[in-house]
C-alpha cells in the first residue's frame, strides 16, 4: 500500500489521444520525495536538451505534492514543470488552490501531458474515468469563464479546474495557468499548455488518501495548527507587517502600502517615489479595496486568508492574491482602482502579474524614446491608462508589435533592436523580475538572485530576517524562541549582525555565513515544493510552523518513508542538483547566475565572485556552476554524471568546464 501518494501517474499522449495509468516506483519517492522532486526526475529522463518548449516532445507535468490530500495544513500545491519558452530552461511554477488535493482524491499524483492535440481540448478526470473532450466552444474564452462553463456543462460544481485564457492559447511567453483563486504564472507554462492545445484540466475525485501512522501524523498536524494559532496572536515585532504574520504576503488584507509603493520602483522598473504615500492616496486606496473586496478566502485546508474575492463596477467577480494588487498600478503610475480593474482582464486572459505590466511599461518607454513609433502602435490612445488596456490586447492577440512584446522584454528587445535592449533591464535568465532598485549590494540577496532557479525571489527567500535589528536586545529576544534553525550557529550570525560598522553589509554576514543562510533558505523552499506545502505557512516566513525538525516526521508518519534530518537534507540536495543539471544540460552557466545589472548601485565584483565560488563549492558545483562528478556520485545521480561526460559538459579528468552545450541557445 502507498501512503500519502497514490502511486499512479496519469500519462496522456495528446497527439494520439492515448490515456494511460502508470504505476510509479516507490524508490523514486524515497529518493526524490514527490512534487518538484519527482517532476524533475521525469523531466531529466524524458526531455533531452534538444527539445524546445513548443515541441511535442516537451512534457507539461502537473504534480501534486507528496502530502497533498492529507490533513497537513496548507498542503495543497500543484507544481507545474516544463521547459519554458522564455528562459528555455526548466520552469517550475506552482499554485495553491484546490486542484492538487482533488487530483489525489481522484487517484493520481501527477498528470503528464506529452504531444500536441490536433484541436483544442480539455481533459475531464473523474476518478477512474478520464476523457479528452472537445473544447472548440471554449476558444478565446477567459480562464475563469472557461472554468465556470465546464463545471456547468458537466454538471459538476465540485470539480476543480485549471485553465488558460487567450494568452495561453496564443502562446504568450508569460501566459499563466489559472485556477480561480490561484495561478501558476512564472516561466510561461500557460503558453506550453496552449501549444499543446489543452484549454483546461478538470478534476473530481472521491477516493481516499491514506497515511501510514495515523495517530502520530495527526499529532504533527495538530501541533502545526496550534502554532499557527499562536503566531496569529503573537506577530513578530520589528519587521514589516507582511513578514510579521504568516500567510502569503497579506496584500489583500492590508491597506498600508507605504512600504511597497515607496521602496519598489514604478514604470518599467525605474522610478522610486519616496514621498508617494500621502494621506490622500491612503484614503483613496483604502476606499477602493474596501468597496471591491467582498471576502477574504483561503486555499484547500488552510486557515490563512491570503486571497480575496473582488468585484469591480461592471466587471465579473474574480479572485486575487498577493502582489498583483500593485504591479499594474505601479507599472502605469496609476491608482489602485486601475490596477484592480486591469488585473481582472489580465486574469481572464491568463497572464503573469509580474512580467505583463513590466512588458507594457517597457513598450511605452520604447515609444517615448522613439524606438517604437506610431507605425508600431497604430491607434495608441492618448490616455495613459487606456494605453495599458490597448497594449494588453495587442500582446494577448499577438497583433503587430504585440507579437514581439508577447515574448517578453528580453526577446522583444532583441527583435526590435535599435537600442531597445537597454530597456529590457530587469531580467534574470531572460525573465522579468520584481521591480526593485537598491543602493548597496546585499550578499544574501545577491546569491539568491543569482542561483535561484525558481526565478522569483519570494520563492527563494525566507527564514532569516531580511535586515539586522538595530538593537542587540531585540536580536536576543528574537533568537530566544527561534527553534526552527537547523543549527544554533544561525542565531549567532543574527545576533552579531549590525546595521553599521564592522559587522554590517556587504561584508557581514561573511561569505561562509551568507552561503549557509542561502543554502538553508533554499532547502526549505525545495522541501515545500516536493511535499506541496505553501511557502506562506512555511519557507517564505520567519519562524514558520513547518521546519527541518518536523518535516522528517511528516514524511515518516504520512508517507511511511523512514526519514531523518540528514536523509531529508540529502534528498533535497539530490533533486535540487537535478534541477541544476537539467538547466546546465540546456546551456546555463555561471554567466547566467547574475542579478539585473542595475539591481544595486554599489557593487563589489570581488566579493560577488567569492560568494559565487564559495556557494558553488558548498553545493558541490565547479567554478562554472556545473555539479561535479564527485557530488553527483555522492547523491546517487550517476546517470547525470554519465550524461555530462558523454556530452562533454564534464571531462573525466574531473570538472574542467568543457565548451557549453549547444542546446537551448538563443
Amino acid at each position, binding site marked *: 500500500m502507498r501512503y500519502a501518494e497514490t502511486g499512479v501517474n496519469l500519462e496522456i499522449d495528446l497527439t494520439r489521444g492515448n490515456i494511460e495509468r502508470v504505476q510509479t516506483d516507490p524508490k523514486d519517492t524515497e529518493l526524490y520525495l514527490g512534487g518538484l522532486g519527482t517532476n524533475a526526475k521525469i523531466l531529466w529522463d524524458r526531455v533531452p536538451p534538444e527539445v524546445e518548449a513548443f515541441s511535442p516532445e516537451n512534457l507539461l507535468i502537473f504534480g501534486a505534492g507528496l502530502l497533498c*490530500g492529507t*490533513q497537513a495544513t496548507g498542503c495543497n500545491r500543484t507544481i507545474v514543470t516544463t521547459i519554458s519558452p522564455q528562459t528555455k530552461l526548466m520552469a517550475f511554477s506552482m499554485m495553491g488552490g*484546490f486542484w492538487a488535493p482533488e487530483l489525489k482524491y481522484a487517484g493520481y499524483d501527477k498528470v503528464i501531458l506529452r504531444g500536441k492535440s490536433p484541436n483544442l481540448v480539455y481533459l475531464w478526470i473523474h476518478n477512474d474515468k478520464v476523457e479528452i473532450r472537445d473544447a472548440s466552444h471554449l476558444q478565446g474564452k477567459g480562464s475563469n469563464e472557461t472554468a465556470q462553463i465546464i463545471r456547468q456543462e458537466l454538471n459538476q460544481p465540485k470539480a476543480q479546474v485549471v485553465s488558460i485564457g487567450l494568452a495561453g492559447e496564443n502562446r504568450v511567453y508569460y501566459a499563466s495557468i489559472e485556477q480561480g483563486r490561484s495561478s501558476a504564472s512564472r516561466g510561461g507554462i500557460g503558453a506550453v499548455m496552449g501549444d499543446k492545445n489543452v484549454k483546461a484540466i478538470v478534476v473530481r475525485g472521491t477516493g481516499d488518501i*491514506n497515511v501510514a501512522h495515523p495517530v502520530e501524523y495527526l499529532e504533527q498536524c495538530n501541533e502545526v*495548527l496550534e502554532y499557527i494559532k499562536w503566531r496569529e496572536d503573537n506577530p513578530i515585532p520589528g519587521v514589516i507587517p507582511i513578514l510579521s504574520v504568516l500567510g502569503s504576503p497579506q496584500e489583500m488584507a492590508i491597506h498600508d502600502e507605504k512600504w511597497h509603493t515607496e521602496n519598489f520602483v514604478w514604470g518599467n522598473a525605474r522610478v522610486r517615489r519616496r514621498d508617494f504615500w500621502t494621506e490622500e492616496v491612503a484614503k483613496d486606496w483604502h476606499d477602493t479595496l474596501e468597496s471591491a473586496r467582498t*471576502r477574504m478566502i483561503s*486555499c484547500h485546508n488552510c486557515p490563512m486568508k491570503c486571497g480575496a474575492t473582488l468585484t469591480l463596477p461592471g466587471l465579473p*467577480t474574480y479572485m486575487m492574491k498577493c502582489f498583483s494588487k500593485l504591479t499594474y498600478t505601479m507599472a502605469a503610475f496609476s491608482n489602485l482602482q486601475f490596477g484592480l480593474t486591469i488585473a481582472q482582464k489580465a486574469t481572464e486572459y491568463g497572464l503573469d502579474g509580474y512580467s505583463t505590466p513590466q512588458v507594457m511599461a517597457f513598450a511605452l518607454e520604447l515609444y517615448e524614446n522613439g524606438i517604437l513609433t506610431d507605425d508600431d502602435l497604430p491607434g495608441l490612445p492618448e490616455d495613459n491608462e487606456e494605453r495599458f488596456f490597448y497594449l494588453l490586447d495587442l500582446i494577448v492577440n499577438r497583433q503587430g508589435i504585440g507579437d514581439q512584446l508577447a515574448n517578453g522584454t528580453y526577446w522583444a528587445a532583441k527583435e526590435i533592436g535599435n537600442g531597445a535592449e537597454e530597456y529590457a533591464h530587469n531580467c534574470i535568465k531572460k525573465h522579468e523580475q520584481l521591480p526593485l532598485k537598491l543602493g548597496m549590494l546585499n550578499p544574501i540577496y545577491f546569491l539568491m538572485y543569482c542561483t535561484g532557479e525558481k526565478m522569483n525571489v519570494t520563492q527563494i527567500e525566507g527564514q532569516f530576517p531580511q535586515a539586522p535589528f538595530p538593537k542587540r536586545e531585540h536580536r536576543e529576544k528574537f533568537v530566544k524562541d527561534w527553534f526552527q534553525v537547523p543549527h544554533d550557529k544561525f542565531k549567532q550570525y543574527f545576533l552579531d549582525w549590525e546595521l553599521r560598522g564592522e559587522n554590517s553589509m556587504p561584508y557581514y554576514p561573511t561569505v561562509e555565513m551568507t552561503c549557509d543562510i542561502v543554502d538553508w533558505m533554499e532547502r526549505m523552499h525545495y522541501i515545500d515544493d516536493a511535499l506541496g506545502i505553501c511557502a506562506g505557512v512555511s519557507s517564505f516566513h520567519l519562524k514558520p510552523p513547518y521546519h527541518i525538525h518536523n518535516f522528517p516526521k511528516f514524511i515518516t508518519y504520512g508517507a511511511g518513508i523512514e526519514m531523518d534530518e540528514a536523509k531529508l537534507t540529502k534528498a533535497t540536495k539530490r533533486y535540487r542538483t537535478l534541477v541544476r543539471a537539467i538547466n546546465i544540460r540546456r546551456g546555463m552557466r555561471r554567466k547566467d547566475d547574475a542579478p539585473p545589472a542595475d539591481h544595486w548601485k554599489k557593487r563589489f565584483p570581488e566579493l560577488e565572485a567569492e560568494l559565487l565560488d564559495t556557494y558553488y563549492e558548498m553545493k558541490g558545483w565547479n567554478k562554472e556552476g556545473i555539479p561535479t562528478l564527485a557530488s553527483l556520485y555522492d547523491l546517487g545521480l550517476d546517470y547525470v554524471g554519465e550524461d555530462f561526460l558523454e556530452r562533454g559538459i564534464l571531462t573525466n579528468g574531473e570538472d574542467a568546464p568543457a565548451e557549453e552545450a549547444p542546446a537551448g541557445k538563443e
Partner: protein
Amino acid sequence: MTGEKEKKVVKTIRIDIDKCNGCRACEVICSAFHAEPKYSSNNPARARIRVIREPYKDQYVPVYAGDYTPAECAGRDKYTIDGKEYDECAFCRASCPSRDEFKEPDSGLPLKCDMCEGEDEPLCVKWCLSDALVLEQREEEVAEEEEQEELEVGLESLADKYGLDKLKDTLARMSKSKKG
C-alpha cells in the same frame, strides 16, 4: 418509550457564513476522524460536513449532514440574502436523492454528523480557525426518545433503493452463505 423527562446536553454549532473562508479544513478533518482506523485516511467526499461553495457568487455555506430522506422535495425555493440568491438545498442537511452530498462515495449509504462523539468538541470546530464554526452547549430537559440506530437508517435507505423484498432476499442469501 417511557415518556419520562431527562436532562440532556444539547450541542449547537453556530455557523457564521460571513466568516467562512472556504478552505474546507472542516471536511478534511471530519473525513479523517471518521476513517477506520481513526485518522488513517482523508477524503472530503466522506465528510459529514460540506461547504456548499459558489466562489464566483461569493457563497460559502458549511452544512452538517442530518437525516436521510428517501424522496426529494416536491418544489424548491430560492432565498435571497444580502442580494445573493441561494438555492434552498444550500442550507439543507438531508442526505437526499437529489444530490451527492452526505453519501458514502462507494456504497451511496447516507452519512450523518455525530458531533465527533468522544471528543471535547467536534473536530471541524477545532480546525476552523476562522471561527465560522463555534460550539455552544446547553442543558435541556427533553422527553426520552429512542434514537434510530445507524444500522436501521442504513437498511432503510437500502430498502428504498432496491426494494424491501430484494433486500430480504439478499440478507437471506448472505446469512445462508455465511453459515455454509
